[in-house]
């Protein structure tokens, strides 16, 4: 009886391990396969040249620039609003009803499907505010999409600052804002940076929200105003892989673009994860 229970335990633990490692294996398979097929497409010219010959050759420079602009633009919206929201919720708010409403808003905003953000951006920013399909419309859409990401990680960072820090500052006669600015924010900076990195990664990788608000198949030059359309890495992958008449001929460009996008997103996320990891470790020690 006892032996049987031990056998069952052993079997189940083996299965749990196998299933867990199979997921990691699938991740490695995806990354490995894409790098194996696409590494040869990456070159300095690929990163710095305009596309040529109807996208069949040349580089992806305008898509890299477009994605970079969208990251900056969305960060300009989501970082200030997100951090201020988190500061209010964690440092100032004293009315539980108000906090509950704001949190409900944030949680539900986090759950809105990305394509619905696209519809929202199209109807409000592109059409109603008449920005047209443009960097500003796309940045605003990605910016509001990223609000919950920034708010949550900033709040998490603020919460790890011990209450005694605040009490010490307040007891010296500092106001709440002076305490936040001089004590709380500096001690939670790595955690806040984590949120910024994660949100930049998300802005770079999202496709559905930019499809109707900013992304375009091809631009002859680089954008010169925030009211211009841009090419973007994720949209470039989607369009080359699904539309047009040269799907097979552009395969190596598709793989190359996927690698550039993955590298960009992974780099941002790894930086964020490592920052958070060290931040947590420092706090627990």
């Amino acid at each position, binding site marked *: 009886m006892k032996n049987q229970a031990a056998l069952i*335990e052993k079997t189940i633990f083996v299965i749990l391990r196998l299933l867990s490692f199979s997921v990691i294996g699938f991740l490695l398979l995806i990354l490995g396969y894409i790098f194996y097929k696409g590494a040869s497409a990456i070159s300095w010219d690929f990163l710095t040249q305009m596309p040529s010959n109807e996208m069949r050759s040349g580089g992806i420079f305008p898509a890299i620039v477009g994605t970079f602009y969208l990251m900056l633009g969305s960060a300009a919206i989501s970082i200030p609003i997100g951090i201020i929201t988190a500061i209010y919720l964690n440092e100032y708010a004293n009315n539980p009803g108000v906090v509950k409403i704001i949190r409900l808003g944030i949680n539900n905003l986090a759950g809105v499907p990305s394509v619905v953000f696209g519809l929202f951006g199209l*109807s409000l920013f592109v059409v109603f505010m008449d920005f047209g399909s443009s960097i500003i419309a796309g940045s605003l859409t990605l910016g509001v999409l990223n609000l919950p990401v920034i708010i949550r990680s900033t709040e998490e960072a603020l919460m790890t600052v011990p209450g005694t820090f605040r009490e010490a500052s307040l007891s010296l006669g500092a106001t709440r804002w002076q305490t936040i600015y001089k004590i709380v924010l500096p001690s939670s900076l790595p955690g806040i940076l984590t949120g910024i990195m994660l949100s930049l990664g998300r802005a770079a990788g999202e496709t559905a929200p930019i499809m109707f608000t900013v992304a375009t198949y091809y631009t002859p030059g680089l954008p010169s105003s925030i009211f211009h359309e841009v090419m973007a890495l994720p949209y470039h992958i989607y369009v080359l892989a699904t539309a047009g008449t040269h799907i097979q001929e552009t395969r190596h460009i598709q793989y190359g673009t996927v690698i550039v996008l993955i590298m960009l997103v992974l780099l941002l996320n790894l930086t964020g994860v490592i920052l958070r990891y060290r931040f947590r470790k420092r706090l627990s020690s």
Partner: protein
Amino acid sequence: MLFKRHKSVIYDLVLERAFLVVAFASVMVLFLIMLFLFKEGIPVFETVTVDDFLLGTEWYPTSEPARFGAFPLIIASLFVTMIACVVAIPLSLSIAIYLSELAQPVLREIIKPTIEIIASIPSVVIGFFGMVVVAPFLQDQFNLDTGLNAFNASIMLAFMAIPTIASISEDAISSVPMELKEASYALGANKWQTIFHITLPASLSGIWTAIILGISRVIGETMVVLMVAGGATTLPTSIFDPVRPLTANIAAEMAEAPYQSDHYHALFAIGIILFVITFIFNILADYLSNKYKFKEN
């Protein structure tokens, strides 16, 4: 001195008010999303009844007269979500149990961030992999007309849902108090018996929250189903049939729908369906995670 102090106190109070206004931005955005979805989506019901829209089986937005029956799209969404859950839930729970109860600390420190990495991979990349690698593979293995179908999309969606379900479940499982487990060990139960009879039941509400949030993410995912599900607007009869979920339909047709046409409004109405479904799921998850939670001491 007194004057200076007074000024900084006023400054503090002004900032508090200003920050409160900014903090309402998320609520306002959510409200604006609803407002604009309904403003652009409701007009379609001047040409089609709510019943015909939700239950009609023919989606021919460009024929004359146009037919807006979203039922196959709704079924497609539910269909791929269900298969994705069947795949994702056991895998996610395995990871959650493995990480919280079995893994050595060193391995845990490696595997946890690796799972987080999965969550960060852009959906267009997963879609691309499903298209150029998994689809030809499935087509060969099962002798199919096309590898772009509900099954392929579900596998890719399951992979994307795993980080959400696994990490929230793991939090729930880790938060079960040690005393409960020790009581079980003291009665002679082994580790698996304790996990199965004590730890898992005790963290069930957290696991449900995780599953609901995972489902919500799968239903709203766009690029993977747009690129991999096959795009047919007919009712599926097998898991290897091509389908077109709600999200994919919006993304596929928005570019060609003339502004303020019935088609344009119909796509926003689909957006309303998606918004309402995910809204309900999020409220449910919120409720569950607040209702049953071990108090941290």
